[in-house]
């Protein structure tokens, strides 16, 4: 029997491989170093993430290679890699002091963080139902564990259980949808499905049911209404650094695969899915914003706000055109900085509360501007950007997706989005008001903020200002990435 060695162009998946190898390296180093040196694992992880980011950028030469109908390193995947790696790098910087404070097992923490990152990158690159499913499970299972990693906290274990049960349920729907699509198209490759859809004439109802079930599965991952009910509990119960990571990474990966399936594989059936996504988008932003108005706990408020942002981003997808797609990509990139940054301030605020685990409520933020002016400025920037105040990144991101929705004929959706942004300004500004206008009590623990976290917050804050003022380079990249998906 003849055995042939794999003839892969490994360069295609080099960023993913670098992240995976770094994860293994962290595991090995974790075993050989002493207890007091565990903090160094973060630097190993950070170097791996930065290397993968550099590779993703370097690999991007417009040739859009693919590996055997399974994974692609096209512009779409590489752009999303950058957003995912930004989230991972920021999360690592935010974890430096936090993991020690709440007593997370650092070796496993960074290993799982990197494995989850690899899963997200694979999902962005996946061009086959099999690889989409496997990548989704890699990122989900490592996130279930990361959410429950704070074993001293019972809320953390509860959040992990809730996330797991609903996540596995959603995987079931996704898989059943994939099975139906496979049966109708006769292949699991997205290119094959696209060809079958184009050849088919009148689409079979089962194909559409399959697509609907897949949208439900992805909808759970990115927290679309009505699949959002897990979000506040999980975001609140998880260690805050994990929340910062998953609130960005899981959304980027979910939208990546949803975009590929809807825009590429089912691109010719736009008329059948666009209105569904548009309705989901309007529902999602409204429900998220209305619930966020009532929250006094900032982690919960940001959880609902992240639901609302999933709705805004979905508007770009529902637009169904190239502007919408590049708008969605820009949105996800900007969102990585502003949302992760906001959670970082919560991590920093928890530092002043000692071991009580506080620092999450609006009252804890009262008078922060007097105590920590730098943090307060950064938090104000993140809040304003999330609210969509010009000239910050969040404003431009919304402008792009709503503009694309108008061009796609969904004027009502754009109106919905604008009204929602106005509503959301109330609860974002409430945080700013609390920091600047209210008297606060002195910090329980007058501790300095970790230098790594300061660097991460500063980078994120600078990034959202720069993205708002000089969006050109990133917008151009997003446009190229969108064309790589849609063909142009």
């Amino acid at each position: 029997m003849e055995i042939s060695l794999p003839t892969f162009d490994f360069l295609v998946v080099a960023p993913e491989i670098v992240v995976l190898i770094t994860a293994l390296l962290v595991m090995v180093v974790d075993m050989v170093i002493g207890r007091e040196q565990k903090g160094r694992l973060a630097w190993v992880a950070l170097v791996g993430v930065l290397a993968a980011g550099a590779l993703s950028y370097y690999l991007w030469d417009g040739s859009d290679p693919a590996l055997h109908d399974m994974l692609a390193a096209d512009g779409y995947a590489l752009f999303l890699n950058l957003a995912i790696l930004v989230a991972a790098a920021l999360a690592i910087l935010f974890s430096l002091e936090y993991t020690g404070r709440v007593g997370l097992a650092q070796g496993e923490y960074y290993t799982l963080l990197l494995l989850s990152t690899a899963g997200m990158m694979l999902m962005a690159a996946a061009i086959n139902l099999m690889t989409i499913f496997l990548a989704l499970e890699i990122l989900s299972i490592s996130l279930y564990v990361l959410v429950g990693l704070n074993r001293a906290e019972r809320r953390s274990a509860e959040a992990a259980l809730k996330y797991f049960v609903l996540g596995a349920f959603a995987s079931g729907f996704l898989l059943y949808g994939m099975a139906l699509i496979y049966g109708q198209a006769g292949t699991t490759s997205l290119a094959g499905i696209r060809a079958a859809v184009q050849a088919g004439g009148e689409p079979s109802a089962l194909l559409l049911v399959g697509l609907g079930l897949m949208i439900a599965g992805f909808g759970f991952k990115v927290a679309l209404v009505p699949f959002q009910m897990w979000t506040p509990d999980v975001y609140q119960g998880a260690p805050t650094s994990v929340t910062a990571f998953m609130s960005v990474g899981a959304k980027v990966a979910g939208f990546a695969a949803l975009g590929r399936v809807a825009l590429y594989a089912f691109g010719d059936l736009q008329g059948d899915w666009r209105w569904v996504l548009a309705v989901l988008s309007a529902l999602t932003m409204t429900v998220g914003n209305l619930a966020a108005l009532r929250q006094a706990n900032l982690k919960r408020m940001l959880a609902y706000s992240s639901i609302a942002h999933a709705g805004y981003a979905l508007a770009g997808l529902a637009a169904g055109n190239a502007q919408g797609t590049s708008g969605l990509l820009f949105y996800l990139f900007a969102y990585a900085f502003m949302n992760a940054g906001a959670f970082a301030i919560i991590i920093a605020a928890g530092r002043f509360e000692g071991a009580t685990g506080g620092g999450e409520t609006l009252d804890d933020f009262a008078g922060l501007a007097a105590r920590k002016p730098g943090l307060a400025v950064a938090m104000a920037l993140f809040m304003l950007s999330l609210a969509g105040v010009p000239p910050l990144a969040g404003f431009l991101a919304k402008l792009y997706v709503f503009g694309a929705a108008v061009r796609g004929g969904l004027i009502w959706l754009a109106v919905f989005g604008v009204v929602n942004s106005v509503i959301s300004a109330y609860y974002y500004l409430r945080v700013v008001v609390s920091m600047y206008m209210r008297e606060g009590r002195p910090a329980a623990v007058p501790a300095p903020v970790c230098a790594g976290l300061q660097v991460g917050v500063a980078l994120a804050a600078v990034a959202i200002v720069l993205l708002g003022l000089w969006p050109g380079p990133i917008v151009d990249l997003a446009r190229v990435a969108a064309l790589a998906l849609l063909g142009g």
Partner: protein
Amino acid sequence: MTVSQVVFILLSIAALGGALGVVFARNLFRAALALVLSFVGVAGFYVLLEAEFLAMVQILVYVGAIAILIIFAIMLSRRMMSSETQPWNEQWVGAVVVAAALFAALVFILSRVDWPATEAQVPADSISQLGQALVSPDFYVLPFEVASVLLLVALVGAVIIAREQ
């Protein structure tokens, strides 16, 4: 009725009976045993569909590993065996309505689609073809490798979550 149709009906009874047993049994342990029955029934369908290798994997992994793990978990949390708490939550009416609608839609569509009248011929060496496809660089070695990453994640994750403080 041919032999395969009789077998199909028997297997359906096993798979569906087991499934209903899982959902409606009040005792956890019985639910787990019903689950085993359902898994075995599905393995029987795999044999009927001439995928003997997958039938064996189904028995080994689902019955041999997954069901046994679940039974271990039941016994590790012993209180559950005695306490037969309120089995259904309050949303069962809505759940049944939603599920019935989903089911009706699926059956309606499934019964209207034209299916290939005859089965494709199964090649005699289907197992070796499956094996080759799994490790051949031109076919599915890539998802196969990705699955190994998944197993690593599960290994690390399960150990860190379940181990004593």
